[in-house]
């Protein structure tokens, strides 16, 4: 059930991201179409050779193909989401938000590992098994010779324990005891359950760390696009516009700078989508919320800037 929730969450982010990518692609197509109009008019005026027009035509057709591919991916991903949600067609369409939210706060690794240990379902199951065997050992009166066993369950649940889970339990085996086979069986099962629990815990912690690192890298990538690349691209558009105004550079260069800005926004959305999908994976490993704070729902600006300063 949790796996399904994770899959749905990931499909949701993919579908929302796809929609944004399609919208940005349509803007790139608009830009390439404007460049093609300029190329056509130059050729009609007799100022450029056919080659120049055909080069712009090829850029335009390439963008159209890209947009068509983006649209197909979006439709496919949205369908997958609806299937996962048990919904069909237009019913679910309206529910998709327009934009993916931005990552807002850092998630601490230390907090996550302890949450995972207390919330992870596989670990929970392994823990239950271990508790059951511990109870058998207790009932069979072997607790006296298994001092470590009585505290085992509580001990491994300690969220602050790092690395190997405490000292390996060495059970002192009585040499002259009567009920040796039964006792040996109980002890051996208890040990197996304990090792299993230990292995799952190590695996869960390793997975938390691995997924956290991946998420952290993606968050940095998203912030890099948001804080550095997008403002830089907008500035380049402004500078190219100023250069065009002085007739220092062509209309082609100007529209190309705008297309580059939108392409950067497209890469930003791709990073953001990957971030949210990675977050869903991590959430699955942790087995619940990643922090006390709810993820933000406010929409964010990813399209090209339409707010222009009036000269």
């Amino acid at each position, binding site marked *: 059930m949790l796996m399904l929730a994770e899959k749905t969450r990931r499909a949701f982010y993919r579908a929302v991201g796809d929609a944004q990518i399609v919208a940005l692609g349509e803007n790139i197509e608009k830009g390439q*179409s404007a460049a093609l109009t*300029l190329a056509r008019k130059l050729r009609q005026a007799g100022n450029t050779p056919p080659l120049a027009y055909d080069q712009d035509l090829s850029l335009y057709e390439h963008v159209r193909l890209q947009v068509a591919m983006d649209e197909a991916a979006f439709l496919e991903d949205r369908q997958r989401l609806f299937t996962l949600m048990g919904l069909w067609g237009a019913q679910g369409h309206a529910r998709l938000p327009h934009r993916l939210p931005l990552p807002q706060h850092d998630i601490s690794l230390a907090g996550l590992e302890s949450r995972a240990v207390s919330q992870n379902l596989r670990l929970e199951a392994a823990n239950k098994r271990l508790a059951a065997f511990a109870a058998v050992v207790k009932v069979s009166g072997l607790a006296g010779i298994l001092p470590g066993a009585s505290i085992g369950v509580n001990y491994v649940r300690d969220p602050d324990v790092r690395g190997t889970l405490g000292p390996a339990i060495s059970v002192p085996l009585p040499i002259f005891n009567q009920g040796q086979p039964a006792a040996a069986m109980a002890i051996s099962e208890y040990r197996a359950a304990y090792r299993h629990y230990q292995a799952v815990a190590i695996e869960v912690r390793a997975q938390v760390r691995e997924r956290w690192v991946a998420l952290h890298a993606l968050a940095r990538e998203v912030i890099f696009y948001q804080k550095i690349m997008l403002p830089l691209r907008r500035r380049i558009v402004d500078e190219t516009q100023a*250069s065009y105004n002085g007739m220092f550079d*062509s209309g082609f260069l100007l529209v190309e700078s705008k297309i580059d800005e939108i392409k950067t926004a497209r890469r930003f959305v791709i990073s953001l989508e990957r971030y949210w999908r990675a977050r869903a994976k991590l959430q699955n490993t942790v087995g619940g919320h990643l922090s006390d704070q709810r993820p933000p729902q406010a929409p964010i600006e990813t399209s090209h800037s339409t707010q222009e300063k009036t000269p």
Partner: protein
Amino acid sequence: MMNRRTILASGAALAAGAVLPKAASAATPAETPAGAAYSNRRQSEARARALTAKPLAPGLPNRDYMPVVAPNTGTLPFQIVDGVKVFHMVAMEFWNEFAPGLKALVWGYNGMLHPVLEAVEGERVRIYVTNRLPEPTTVHWHGLYVDNGMDGLSGVTQTPIKPGETYKYEFNLVEPGTKMYHSHYDEMTQIALGMTGMFIIHPRTPRYRVDRDFAIMLHEWDIVPGTYRPNPLQMTDFNVFTMNGKSFPSTHPLVARTGQRVRIRLGNLGPMDHHPIHLHNYSFQVVASDGGDYPPSAWQPETTVLVPVGSTRVVEFDATNPGDWAMHCHMTHHTMTQMGHHFGNMIGVKPGNLGEKMRQLLPRYMTMGEDGMGTPMNMPTLPNTAAMEGGKGPYGFINMGGMFTILKVRDGITSYEDVGWYKPLAPPGTVSQLAVPAQMKHDGVNPQNIPPPIPGPSSPATTPM
């Protein structure tokens, strides 16, 4: 057959032969008569003697010569010490305003671009050169007859002047002329950044006098829009063209009174281009170069004089016709300032829905250039850029820039200060204006009568796309 010219030449040969030392004539019996026939040997020998002769007394402005007018720049000051004229040139970096809106860091002398050194034939000059540049420099005296060690060629005739050092040059000015000076260390950089100027040596006894005497150094620069320093690596695509360091409309006009004899000395030590300088209305005579005065029989009437790199040309004319007369380089791109060559040829483009499509993504986009480029755009552009073309004129916008100035000839003026535009002085009926339909009809001119169009090739507009 012997014509008048060859008779005169052989006469000169005989005269030259007469002063030759006996040994020399004996050594080259076969060459001497023919070589001497076309040489100016006596002049050459006089020059050589003058190099080491006792110098004449220093000439003074307005007593021994009429100082030149160098619009937009200045003449370097001097002092006379023990009968020698002493100058101090400081090679340095400073800001120059090329035209409104465009300033850049240039290299020159004493905070000026192309300042004039002015002196008189026969006197002795001592010129101190202090180097305040980040790299060594030297000064070469272009066209001057000097001792080899005074020639200023780094590595060949002297060690370079290191930053912070002051060198001394000293020589007799053996012959008059419109000469020049320029850096001769890392020329490519230092000349590109502005280190050139005119060295005018007035004759001790002029053959005749003129009323106005102007000195203009031509130069070209590569200043990328939005930058603050000329690029010395440029070899072909220069975009700023100046007269004494200014582009129109920053060039000061040349002012003369009607009837005056006007001399204009033009020098070119720009990096790469020769400039055909054209004066409107007047036919002038080309009377001299940095090589010296042309004999009057060799004066040539022209309306345009090509001033090659590394040369001066001196032109003279009588300013008989009042008015505002343009003088400019006739290379059309040399009368533009910071023209971008990557804009694309928009002439004849029918914009249609182009602006609308562009503005979907670029709200400030305007189509430009489809009807020509004669109208200023006045749109916010890059910092530190000059308008491509001129400025306000009496009849509207003047779409000339760069290497362009105006000769202003006025009746009866007593001052050469700002004389304004000629427009209010133009006699009625002497200004071109809108034609009157009645007169056109009378003259049989019908504006609807245009020649039938010549069919073009299968035009791109009709080619399916």
